[in-house]
């Protein structure tokens, strides 16, 4: 399986074009994130399809950011879906990585995964595996139909389930702050479960402005199954409606809410 990808990775590693290639590997009955440094291990390469399509997706871009920052100057390769490509572009716009040091091998998401995941663009610019599936409307519509009071009750019930594991923040490829405000006592009181409702979640949602690329890893990492994607998708929609900006779409575009600039004509 995945012959085209395996061939290309073997080529990249044997010619030394990349120091290592970040992808997934079938290991001990599981699928794990793995840095390939030699073509010998390439047989076990996986693109993250376990029992169902895409059920073993990992934040490869987060690992890549860490590797690039620890080994500046060395090129690395990475297996990237549509969301990973957006993450790479957004990370470059935030000056966390340099795209010249990254060689991308693209994977387009299958129809099953594209519908289940429901992101804005389930395919990268080029891909060696997969098919182009056009996305359906990724807006969180079901929430719009409820009254504000219903929404308040529903969101409160969801936030109440939070066990403050920081999983959403730990797994997010766009969370790279050295000092996270969610760990600051001024924002979230220490030792409370659930954490300061609704502060914790609204602060995180606000910090996702200009960062969230809608990869969906946060919701998958939440042990309480809080519908985080709906919240962050809404933030993305607000930013797109007001400022015509979406993270990771344009290569070099910086978030307009994070630049000291002239105020916009109308808010």
């Amino acid at each position, binding site marked *: 399986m995945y012959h085209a990808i395996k061939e290309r990775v073997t080529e990249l590693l044997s010619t030394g074009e990349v120091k290592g290639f970040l992808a997934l590997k079938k290991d001990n009955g*599981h699928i*794990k*994130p793995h840095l390939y440094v030699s073509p010998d291990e390439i047989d076990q390469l996986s693109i993250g399809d376990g029992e169902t399509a895409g059920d*073993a997706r990992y934040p490869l871009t987060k690992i890549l950011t860490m590797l690039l920052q620890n080994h500046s100057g060395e090129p690395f390769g990475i297996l990237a879906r549509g969301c990973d490509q957006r993450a790479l572009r957004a990370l470059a716009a935030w000056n966390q990585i340099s795209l010249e040091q990254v060689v991308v091998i693209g994977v387009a998401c299958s129809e099953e995964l594209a519908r289940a995941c429901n992101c804005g663009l389930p395919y990268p610019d080029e891909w060696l595996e997969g098919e182009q599936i056009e996305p359906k409307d990724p807006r969180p519509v079901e929430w719009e139909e409820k009254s504000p009071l219903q929404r308040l009750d529903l969101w409160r019930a969801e936030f109440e389930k939070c066990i403050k*594991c920081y999983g959403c923040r730990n*797994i997010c490829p766009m969370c790279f702050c050295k000092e996270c405000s969610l760990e600051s006592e001024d924002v979230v009181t220490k030792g409370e479960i659930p954490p300061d409702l609704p502060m914790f979640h609204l602060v995180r949602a606000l910090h996702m402005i200009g960062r969230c690329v809608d990869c969906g890893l946060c919701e998958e*990492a939440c042990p309480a199954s809080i519908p985080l994607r709906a919240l962050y998708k809404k933030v993305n929609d607000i930013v797109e409606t007001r400022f015509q900006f979406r993270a990771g779409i344009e290569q070099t575009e910086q978030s307009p809410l994070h630049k000291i600039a002239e105020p916009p004509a109308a808010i």
Partner: protein
Amino acid sequence: MDYKTVLTTCAYCGCGCGLYLEVLDGQAIGTIPSKTNPINEGKLCVKGWNIHEFVQHPKRLTKPLIRKNGTLTESSWDEALDYTASRLKEIKEAHGSDSIAFLASAKVTNEENYIIMKFARAAVGTNNVDHCARL
């Protein structure tokens, strides 16, 4: 530069969530939950997310310690084992087996907890064996 992801089980509670330790040049620097593990399905609690921190923590004990003149001082394994064995025998003779109690740990394996139970009941002869999770 050597980056590995090592499959392991969380050492904290009895759930046994599957996770990958991120090891960079021999140092455990991060944790990633295992998506394909049927127990946690890619999710972890706050303790599990920080399991990499204690693995090579500088505060971990590397030598046995014996209290001499009120302060804990480093010693060798031989000295520590001899001291423990002789003192346990003395106390057992002087005050009976039930004057000794054993506290097992949630961070060791089931097999190791079995050994301490057997030691308490068969070797020392007391039922006073309990586990830190019950406290």
